[in-house]
């Protein structure tokens, strides 16, 4: 077992990380100005935060967290639908990430506290088990996540299902997030880190037209610390050389074409549609909806959730003042937002940047700004 573990730990080696950070610094020195790059995946931010990687990035490099957390950008009214279904008597199953996500007035956790039957599951397959265990009740799976997770939902949709099972899709589509950023003229983003696990499904060729059109290189990155650092080094190489190319820095998982059987399954069940993302606004092709031929599995069509009792239009209206979009694009700071710290706080977030524990606004609110820990005192006492 120890040998297997080293396989994984090789991607966390501090010596290699320092060498990569040095290489990054040399690239930034060669470019000779500030450079902004963006990642569009919540898990990248989680990994960057978890391993403290921001502390090793060159000061001239701005690594911006883009609109890439599918939970955070799930809109209040979408949560309202799930809350309405739960309060209406259906069992609602969902991933742990979604439980505390606020709707316009309440979350599924609030509904659960009032006695609604809300189940946290790790896999869509468990939601089907819940449906089998309660044949007399409607059981709804609130399906969140990017295409990687949508594929799992689709695989289950194609299988044999109990008649009382349906799906409330709030799945999101990664390429749409990058389009949103690149369409913003004011954006100073010069390159993108693409989400490795979404690219496992879609393949990295998907990003080629994007890079060619926008002039911004795209590097597909994995989630271990070295994966992320190596990808940023490569991205700064491409920026330095002015090459708007797609590079796959996660070859152990991502191929050019992607997972073809999974793509077939995905597009058989889902189709992209324009949707509103929390704090960002309308995103063309941003959401994944069940195709019409799966209407019988679509909780929206089958159960027609009545949100009138749970929707708070005043709260929904607040979103108009939310600056999440510009903050995510690096064009505004949390203090520029009229809601920050007043109408928008971690306990009652309005925008995606306050929902995520790694969101810019949440970090500013909790720590009074992005903390610089590079200069804090050294090593542990008594360490041999």
């Amino acid at each position, binding site marked *: 077992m120890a040998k297997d573990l080293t396989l994984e730990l090789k991607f966390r080696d501090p*010596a290699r990380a320092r060498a990569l950070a040095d290489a990054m610094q040399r690239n930034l020195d060669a470019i000779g100005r500030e450079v902004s790059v963006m990642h569009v995946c919540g898990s990248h931010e989680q990994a960057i935060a978890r391993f403290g990687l921001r502390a090793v990035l060159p000061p001239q490099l701005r690594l911006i967290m883009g609109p890439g957390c599918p939970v955070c950008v799930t809109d209040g009214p979408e949560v309202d639908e799930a809350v309405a279904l739960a309060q209406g008597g259906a069992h609602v199953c969902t991933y742990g990430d979604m439980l505390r996500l606020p709707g316009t007035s309440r979350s599924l956790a609030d509904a659960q506290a009032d006695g609604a039957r809300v189940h946290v599951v790790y896999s869509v397959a468990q939601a089907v088990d819940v449906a089998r265990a309660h044949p007399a009740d409607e059981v709804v799976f609130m399906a969140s996540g990017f295409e990687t997770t949508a594929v799992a939902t689709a*695989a289950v949709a194609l299988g044999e299902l109990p008649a009382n099972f349906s799906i409330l899709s709030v799945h999101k589509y990664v390429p749409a997030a990058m389009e949103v950023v690149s369409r913003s003229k004011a954006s100073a983003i010069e390159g993108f880190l693409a989400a490795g696990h*979404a690219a496992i499904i879609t393949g990295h060729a998907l990003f080629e037209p994007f890079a060619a059109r926008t002039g911004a290189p795209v590097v597909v990155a994995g989630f271990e610390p070295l994966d992320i650092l190596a990808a940023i*080094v490569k991205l700064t190489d491409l920026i330095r050389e002015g090459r708007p190319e797609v590079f796959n820095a996660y*070859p*152990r998982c991502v191929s050019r074409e992607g997972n073809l059987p999974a793509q077939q399954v995905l597009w058989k069940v889902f189709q992209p549609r324009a949707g509103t993302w929390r704090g960002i606004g309308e995103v063309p092709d941003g959401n994944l909806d069940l195709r019409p031929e799966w209407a019988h599995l679509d909780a929206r069509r089958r159960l027609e959730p009545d949100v009138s009792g749970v929707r708070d239009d005043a709260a929904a209206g607040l979103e108009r003042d939310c600056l999440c979009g510009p903050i995510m694009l690096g064009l505004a700071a949390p203090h520029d937002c009229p809601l920050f710290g007043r109408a928008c706080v971690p306990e009652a977030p309005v925008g995606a940047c306050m929902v995520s524990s790694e969101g810019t606004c949440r970090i500013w609110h909790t720590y009074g700004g992005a903390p610089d820990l590079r200069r804090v005192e050294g090593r542990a006492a008594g360490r041999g």
Partner: protein
Amino acid sequence: MCLGVPGKVLAIDGLSATVDFFGVQKELRLDIVDEPVAVGDYVLNHVGFAIRRIPPDEVQETLALFDQILDVTGAKDDLMAMDVRGEIAAARAKG
């Protein structure tokens, strides 16, 4: 939405596999994995589904890629990077 952890396939039963994640075992579904999976293979798990078979040589390929990235930026002249290369070589020698 990317929590994915690699694990080693211990047994396969139709479209279901028992996979070991460094001491914890879990049943994964194989409906959407990209290519046929055999006992002993590594697969990437996402929400209870194997989404990718990880060929062992591609783990080495990733390490070689880091190597190459360091090369291109001139880091190989760096003393630290020399140490890194020593480690990479040692890791390879151990297999």
